[in-house]
């Protein structure tokens, strides 16, 4: 299991994403899937750096571990205000564009890309766990 923790600011996004991708690469994902995992991680991390610590500073951690079934579990956690990203309404992607609400797309993409997404509030931390399985 590997973990890094960085200040929750935009300047650190790349470092955090690269870390998750290196772990995913080790698990054997192909380039195309790594691109999708990058997107899911970026969406989740942008949410944390944008909203977790209104008006103050904090950190965000990324922890990677192999999934038992083959694949990776990427856990993104922070000590910010309690927020369950899965509580956001699912955007209606069938609505005509004029009526589309701008928002919720990031979490929608995460759900579409990953095989399992879970949120927990544990010991004062938001823990968002994203699982991607290797295709057999």
């Amino acid at each position, binding site marked *: 299991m590997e973990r890094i923790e960085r200040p929750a600011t*935009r300047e650190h996004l790349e470092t955090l994403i690269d870390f998750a991708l290196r772990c995913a690469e080790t698990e054997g994902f192909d380039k195309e899937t790594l691109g999708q995992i990058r*997107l899911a991680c*970026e*969406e989740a991390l*942008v949410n944390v750096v944008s909203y977790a610590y209104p008006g103050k500073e904090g950190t965000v951690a990324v922890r990677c571990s192999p999934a038992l079934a083959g694949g990776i579990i990427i856990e993104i956690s922070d000590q910010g205000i309690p927020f369950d990203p899965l509580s956001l309404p699912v955007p209606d992607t069938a609505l005509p*564009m*004029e009526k589309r609400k701008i928002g919720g797309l990031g979490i*929608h*993409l995460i759900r579409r*890309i990953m095989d399992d997404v879970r949120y927990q509030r544990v010991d004062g931390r938001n823990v968002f766990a994203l699982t991607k399985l290797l295709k057999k």
Partner: protein
Amino acid sequence: MAENISMTCAGGCAKVVLSGRLDALSAPALQEELKKLIGQNIEALVFYANDLEYISSAGLRVIIFAKQKISAEAKVYFIGGREAVVSVLKMSGLDTFMSIQPTYNG
């Protein structure tokens, strides 16, 4: 103007060339550019994406913004997008309101 965006506008047709990464860091610059088109009677909005490597929800939101704020009647085209980029557009349902095609004659 951001270095990875260029925009030209003529005869009711706005052409926007995207390159590199359209993510949370670069999307605000694109939004600022597109705001210049508001009220300009745009009939067609054409995004050239041959050199676009990556798009995140921040980029998608700007495209939705463009459609909603510039002109609801404008036709929107997304030209030459790579497979990975187009798949993100489709996952988000943006293919329902804009025409994703390899080339544009106009």
